[in-house]
């Protein structure tokens, strides 16, 4: 490993600023020209317990996290105890040598460097309390990584200036005191550095941020939601920009209202979105079907977390695929797409609105906590070539011959009826979630029913998931084909990179509905062996492939502990099959 490849973790109780410290480190690495992957783990409590922020950095794109730590910054004893065994020989443990009580026996013998610092004294000397602990820890880490005094000052400036002079000064003091203790001998003994390397500017971006930016680019005008991890940060990201981008973001009283408002906004003619996780999605089912029945464009983000029920609210899982594909009574067209990384979140966050308006039906983007909240580095996403397509819209409101109503559900060749924005003079329309005729009038006639069902069920036929719904990574032919979807994409790519020239490729499925059945079947048919990699207990994609492509993959690598696969863990599991 090069000295520029780094695997670091900050750990400590909730409330100690683990995430802040981790984010600062991640940004420093990014600005030093590194690609970064950042993974945050935290329990569903506000203070105490244990949080961690893991940063993997290097000159190449970083796919995910792995076990062998180069450096652990333990802000408390629990962090040291939980993660000390993950430090590789030659790695460092930064810990509290003054009041710390964690049992560190055996570490030195394993060749782990113990960077014990008197944190309580340091924060006291810096004129503060526990709230300076993460700054002190940061100083220690930057010392170890070879940053000089100016670089340290700049990092602190960047991180703390917005809290005002006094806070900045205290944090800087704490950081500097710790830096002084590690930047000499200890740094010399440590084999990793954070020296800048030349690289284009890169964003450090989560899936939720990328998706939100894609949606704004698409002309999102209305977002309603109800707080629920891991979808909340879409709402909060958008809310902060609401005035700059001339959009309305509404924290509704519940998820039913959130999706209801989004439907109303869609009916009125703007691009609208809502987002939630599985529990909230339960409450959205009925409106989802209404959007399908009334042919209202709608984008819904479902960012999964481990269920059933409240489950593990701040952890990750891919357990809602089957549900999202089937939610709501009756048959109607729904487009379900599972992006695999922030770049895909951006792209589909944009494209979802074109699809929703082109087909006048709900589009669901299926993420999970790992994708929503982890960070990766990317050059700013290219926006040229992203064209807004609002679908078939009536120019003016000519009512159907002999009727006073604009035919909102006119049967056309494509199945898509021209849309007419409410407020357009010259006619009006009516529509309903009841079965209806072409004019949107309630109709219980068998003929109308069948005609309109055929119409809506047929209209996504032109959408060919074969073109966008999958990617075969690696060699077209291989001894082993990994099959996965969504947020396992990057860990799988990382594992494949680890496995070097091994004869393995990876079929990433992205279009969950419509499903690229032919392509998937063809790839699996020519693959001598396939294994499903899923972050759930029952291999839900496996069921979908069995149903849609008539192939049952029996070999599975599943993880459902609420954590994402580590790259090395996955490489090992795949390696066993080679």
């Amino acid at each position: 490993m090069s000295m520029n490849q780094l695997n670091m973790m900050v750990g400590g109780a909730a409330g100690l600023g683990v995430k802040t410290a981790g984010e600062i480190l991640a940004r420093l690495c990014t600005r030093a020209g590194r690609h970064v992957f950042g993974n945050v783990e935290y329990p569903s409590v506000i203070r105490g317990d244990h949080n961690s922020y893991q940063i993997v950095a290097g000159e190449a794109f970083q796919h995910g996290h792995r076990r062998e730590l180069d450096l652990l910054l333990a802000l408390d004893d629990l962090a040291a105890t939980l993660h000390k065994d993950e430090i590789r020989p030659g790695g460092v443990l930064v810990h509290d040598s003054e009041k710390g009580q964690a049992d560190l026996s055996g570490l030195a013998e394993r060749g782990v460097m113990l960077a014990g610092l008197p944190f309580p004294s340091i924060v006291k000397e810096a004129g503060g309390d526990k709230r300076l602990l993460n700054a002190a820890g940061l100083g220690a880490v930057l010392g170890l990584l070879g940053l000089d005094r100016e670089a340290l000052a700049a990092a602190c400036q960047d991180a703390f200036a917005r809290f005002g002079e006094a806070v900045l000064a205290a944090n800087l003091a704490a950081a500097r005191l710790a830096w002084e203790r590690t930047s000499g001998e200890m740094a010399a003994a440590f084999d990793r550095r954070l020296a800048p390397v030349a690289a284009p500017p890169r964003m450090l971006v989560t899936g939720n941020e990328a998706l939100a930016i894609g949606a704004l680019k698409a002309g999102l005008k209305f977002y309603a939601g109800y707080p629920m991890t891991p979808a909340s940060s879409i709402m909060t990201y958008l809310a902060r920009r609401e005035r700059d981008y001339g959009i309305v973001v509404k924290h509704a009283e519940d998820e039913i209202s959130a999706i209801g408002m989004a439907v109303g906004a869609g009916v009125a003619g703007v691009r609208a979105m809502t987002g939630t996780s599985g529990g909230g999605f339960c409450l959205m089912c009925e409106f989802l079907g209404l959007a399908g029945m009334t042919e209202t464009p709608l984008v819904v983000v479902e960012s999964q977390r481990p269920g059933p029920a409240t489950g593990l609210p701040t952890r990750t899982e891919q357990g809602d695929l089957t549900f999202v594909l089937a939610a709501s009574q009756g048959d109607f067209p729904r487009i379900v797409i599972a992006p695999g990384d922030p770049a895909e979140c951006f792209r589909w966050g944009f494209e979802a609105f074109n699809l929703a308006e082109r087909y006048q039906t709900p589009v669901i983007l299926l993420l999970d906590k790992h994708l929503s909240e982890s960070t990766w580095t990317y050059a700013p996403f290219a926006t040229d070539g992203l064209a807004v397509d609002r679908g078939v819209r009536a120019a003016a409101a000519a009512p159907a011959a002999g009727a006073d109503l604009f035919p909102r559900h006119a049967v056309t060749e494509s199945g898509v009826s021209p849309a007419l924005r409410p407020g357009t003079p010259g006619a009006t329309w009516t529509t309903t979630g009841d079965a209806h005729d072409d004019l949107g009038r309630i109709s219980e006639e068998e003929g109308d029913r069948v005609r309109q069902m055929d119409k809506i069920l047929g209209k996504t036929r032109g959408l060919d998931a074969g073109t966008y719904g999958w990617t075969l990574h690696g060699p077209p032919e291989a001894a082993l084909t990994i099959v996965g979807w969504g947020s396992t994409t990057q860990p799988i790519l990382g594992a494949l990179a680890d496995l070097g020239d091994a004869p393995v490729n990876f079929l990433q499925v992205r279009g969950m509905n419509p499903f690229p059945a032919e392509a998937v079947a063809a790839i699996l048919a020519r693959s001598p062996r396939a294994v499903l990699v899923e972050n759930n207990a029952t291999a839900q994609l496996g069921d979908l492939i069995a149903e849609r492509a008539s192939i049952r993959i029996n070999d599975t690598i599943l993880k459902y502990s609420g954590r994402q696969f580590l790259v090395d863990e996955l490489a090992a599991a795949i390696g066993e099959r080679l």
Partner: protein
Amino acid sequence: MTMDPTRFNREAKPTWCPGCGNFGIQNALKKALNALELEPHQVLLSTGIGCSGKISHWINAYGFHGLHGRSLPVAIGMKLASHALTVIAEGGDGDGYSEGMGHFIHACRRNVDITYLVHNNGVFGLTTGQVSPTGDQGFVSSTTPHGALERPFHPLALAIGAGTTYVARGFSGDSERLAGLIADAVRHPGFAVVDILQVCVSFNPDKSYKWYQERVFDLDAEGHDPADRAAALAATEPREDGRLPTGLFYRAEAPTLEAGLPQLAGAPLVDHDIAAVDVAPLMEGLI
């Protein structure tokens, strides 16, 4: 230019039972929209599921007949997206006060400039007459064969308690006065609730036109001051003589939610140009 007074009519005939109070409400709504000098295309209705909710099919305006209990969230989304339109939410008492109660209370405090009309007939009409939350205690219906045990609430007491800025009650048997209340409610800047005592001839026949006519009276006639919140609340209490006050219970001035959104100060969202949104600064911000 004088406007065609029949412009809110639709060809189709309502499927309500002959004698249903909904006809009176339909009439009143058309009259109100006429009095407001609106054009059909300027009006957007969001209705619930029930006999009542079907009204959007029989008023010539843009109409969205959605889900049971959910007319309000839809209407709020409509208004925020296209605030130049007159947005009216409408449905039944089962719809609004049973399934939709949570939305109702929150709409009251949200104060978006929409109007909410509730066809309050004391029963779930379309599902054949089960007692609604405003039905009498002891009411016998298919789900309460031994009499309803829950006590009804006065919806306007809740509306006032939750902060509604326009609170009125009408009677389906008096279209003229009801039309006035509806027009006023639409004019009112902010969330306006009109609870409408509605005759259901099929499932609540005891509360007939006659029954109501013997009891309803206008609060105005008692010199009620709609600015007096305590008096308005007092007016929601049952009276010993069984008489039923109608008219304007309460009105207050308060900024609408929209007023707090500078992004709505210009054109409605629906008129924004979205062809070339610049997200480069956002991406810059992540570097």
